[in-house]
């Protein structure tokens, strides 16, 4: 039997008109005074989110942990939407549900009752308490509130059971920084409160990946395995936010995986800490170094050849393990692919935007491919960003076709307006917020970084390591080809 259907398929593309410039069908030239973000108070299309979501991300990477967000409902719900859209996975995040009374009297009652309700409904393995702008402005004394919450819990469920559930407090006043810093603060908060004793030293290494996707974390694990090194990945979202569909499930649903609390406690015994992203996780590594003298290797994020080399060399140096032939082969295959595709990648002008560390990594890789980074923008302002980018440029500058421009903490409006003034661009590397820019300028976009919510599968495809770089390279080349030769009759490879 043939199914007959009426094809009313959503909104046709020509009607999907999302007005970008209000009330102006014709293009209005911008006042050049207003383009640089530093000249303005107003921010147009921010290129960063606020702190709490970075901390929630971190908590979701711990085994059976639930973030508890001390704020109004929206902060939680918006973050859950964001996680759902990116990972296509459920994200269980509890909210203190501030209403007007909390705004007047503070969030004491909410956290005390809230922690209790969360525990009796979910019995989590750990609670990560994440503050927000509202609780920070009101000056909630979270340390003493949490003490009270614990006391209340003890009375109800007994001391022993209460002690089984660690509570980690992460202060993330939204206005004080971006999601990147939220993650960074979480890394420190977790280590400070859990990794407290260095007693039985181990051969393991600590890895704090930063806001990398499950595919990336798996690739890092692969590198460790090949190196024959055992490691603890702090905030391991590779299973929690990429879980198999395997019904029937226990209720409440907890995703598999996540870093076990016991392993986090052992991180003080490790041999070294690798924070792959200095801006997201660097604080955690530095804390362990200061407190216990555990050597910290902070960055660079292993995107591209040189950065992956550096990661493996450091790993090899600290553990005394050789870099095995298998990894040398992976490297060889990547370099081979770079040589094969060079005629397509070389001398391409590329614009890169996103979170600082990933942007630094992408910039170096783009340079390795013979491209010219014409504009590089970090949504989160950083003290070190410009310096790092400059040092990459120094190495490759003689190949550049145009003078690159670096934006440290600007918005997407500034970035877009700048790109519009350039005579030529071939490619944009960045996250989903760049779709608009890419459409407007008619330049292909390769999606990398956080967040990617408008396509499937990116969270599973690594960009780190040699294999990740190879996949990314193919993505770049194919995107360029799609754009120039959309049809195979015009170009036989």
């Amino acid at each position: 039997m043939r199914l007959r259907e009426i094809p009313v398929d959503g909104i046709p593309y020509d009607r999907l008109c999302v007005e970008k410039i209000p009330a102006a069908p014709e293009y209005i030239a911008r006042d050049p005074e207003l383009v640089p973000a530093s000249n303005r108070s107003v921010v147009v299309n921010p290129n960063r989110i606020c702190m709490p979501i970075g901390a929630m991300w971190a908590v979701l990477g711990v085994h059976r942990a639930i973030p508890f967000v001390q704020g109004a409902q929206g902060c939680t719900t918006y973050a859950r939407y964001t996680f759902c859209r990116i990972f296509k996975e459920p994200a269980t995040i509890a909210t203190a549900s501030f209403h007007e009374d909390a705004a007047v009297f503070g969030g004491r009652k909410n956290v005390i009752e809230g922690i209790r309700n969360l525990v009796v409904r979910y019995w989590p393995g750990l609670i990560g308490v994440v503050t927000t702008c509202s609780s920070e402005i009101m000056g909630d004394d979270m340390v003493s509130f949490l003490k009270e919450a614990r006391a209340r819990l003890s009375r109800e469920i007994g001391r022993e059971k209460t002690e089984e559930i660690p509570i980690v407090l992460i202060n993330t006043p939204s206005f004080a920084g971006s999601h990147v810093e939220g993650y960074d603060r979480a890394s420190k908060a977790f280590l400070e409160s859990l990794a407290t004793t260095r007693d039985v030293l181990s051969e393991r290494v600590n890895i704090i990946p930063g806001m990398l996707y499950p595919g990336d974390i798996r690739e890092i694990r692969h590198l460790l395995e090949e190196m024959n090194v055992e490691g603890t990945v702090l905030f391991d979202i590779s299973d929690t936010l990429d879980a198999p569909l395997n019904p029937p499930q226990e209720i409440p649903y907890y995703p598999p995986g996540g870093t076990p609390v016991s392993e986090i406690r052992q991180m003080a015994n490790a041999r070294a800490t690798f924070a792959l992203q200095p801006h997201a996780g660097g604080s955690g590594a530095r804390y362990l170094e200061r407190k216990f003298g555990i050597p910290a290797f902070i960055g660079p994020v292993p995107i591209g050849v040189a950065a992956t080399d550096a990661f493996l060399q450091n790993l090899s140096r600290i553990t005394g393990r050789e870099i095995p032939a298998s990894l040398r082969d992976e490297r060889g295959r990547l370099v081979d692919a770079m040589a094969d595709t060079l005629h397509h990648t070389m001398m391409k002008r590329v614009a890169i935007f996103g979170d600082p560390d990933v942007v630094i990594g992408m910039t170096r890789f783009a340079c390795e491919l013979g491209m010219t980074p014409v504009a590089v923008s970090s949504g989160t302002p950083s003290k070190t960003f410009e310096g790092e980018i400059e040092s990459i440029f120094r190495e490759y500058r003689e190949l550049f076709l145009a003078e690159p421009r670096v934006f440290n903490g600007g918005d997407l409006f500034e970035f877009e307006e700048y790109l519009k003034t350039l005579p030529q661009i071939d490619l944009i590397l960045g996250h989903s917020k760049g779709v608009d820019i890419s459409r407007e300028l008619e330049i292909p976009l390769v999606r990398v970084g956080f967040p990617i919510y408008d396509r499937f599968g990116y969270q599973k495809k690594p960009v780190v390591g040699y294999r990740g770089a190879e996949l990314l390279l193919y993505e770049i080349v194919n995107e360029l080809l799609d754009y120039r030769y959309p049809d195979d009759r015009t170009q036989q490879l």
Partner: protein
Amino acid sequence: MPGVERLLPERRRHVVTKGDGTAVLPECGRPTVPGLVSERACAFYGARWMLGAIPDVIHLVHGPAGCAYFGGIVRRKSYRVFSTQLEESDIVFGAGEKLYRAILEAVAAAPGARAVLVYATCTAGLIGDDLDGICRRAARAVGRPVVPVNSPGFCGYSQAAGHDIAAGVLLEHFIGTGKAQEPVANGVNLLGEFDVMGDLGEIERLLQQLGLRILCAFSGRAATTAMADAHRARLNIVHCRRTGQRLADAMQERFGTPQLKVSFFGFEETASALHSIGKFFGSAGVEEIVEQGRREVGNAAPFLKKLAGKRVALFFGASRIGTMARAFAELGMEVVMIGSQFGCLEDYGDAGARVRAGTVLIDDPPEKELEEFIRKYRPHLFVGGTKEKYLATKLGVPFLVFPQEMSSFAGFRGFVNLAREAAGLVGAPVWRLARCERYYRTLQTAEG
């Protein structure tokens, strides 16, 4: 509900089972119980939902980067947002001047905008700048309305508070501000219609067959010019009570515009909507349109076969629960649960009247209760929002996102789409394949 005893005491009265004849309704409109994984959002979210799609104004979010970033996406579309992106120093020293400058700059950057909407978020609400005063001062400077939307996230109990705040803003500053007064003979407004995936086009097609013209749809098609003219409509068609009723009542009072509450979801509802609208205008040919619709809906027959007797659970925004319950009943499905984040008694009353005894009515269920519900009732289909989707999926239950993400569900044709999507989801092979344990077992027995 599965072991009502397992509910927190505060939650018990929010969950009822429809008995025979007696219409008991869940308690609603209450504060959210802290510490649960609430499916509710904040007032700012609600205000953005209502106002986000207004095309010819500047949307300026007065708050930290996060609110602006999140608020840029409304109903799965992204819009340009302006923000003051408050930082630590602004919190300490006050952000009033920054806001004032930001408004001026935003207008300079988008000079064509007809007005500026300034959304106050939690932060703005707490630092207590004189938002109204700043907006008034800025309005004089930029020579167009600068309107405060006072929607800090903690006000009210859910996004519903934001809907009300937004409705107030529209009434006070935009609706009926046009000069022309004479009514448009065939003009109607749609209140509470957001044009999700082309719904508005489908509704418009039907209304056009009645000879009617949509002056303004709040807020699927609500440019400031259209809102300014909205008072000239002969009739206000309320499509969503939650977001439309308040506008309708105020407009009735102010301009004397009569109102009709209808729904365009499902065959019966659409037909009766057309009948009552047709009757109001004395239009001819309603019967033919409905007949044509009946023929079109006939296309759903093959899908209905797949859906007959299947259990469905509904969980979404307030006032559509009732009419959608009826639409799903028309698909031949058995509605086993109806819930909403922010329904009012009327909504639950509506919904309760349209379902069979034994159906669970649930107000503001947190995630855990939805899980427990799924375990106990094993619906064949769960209808709700993106947040709930991936959880249901993990538990092996097919999920239809509503407001929809693939095709229009409104009108007769939309009903066929609804049937098609529901049938596709329910019968999909993936749910069989997902039960891999059973699969391994059959494999073993086959081999053994």
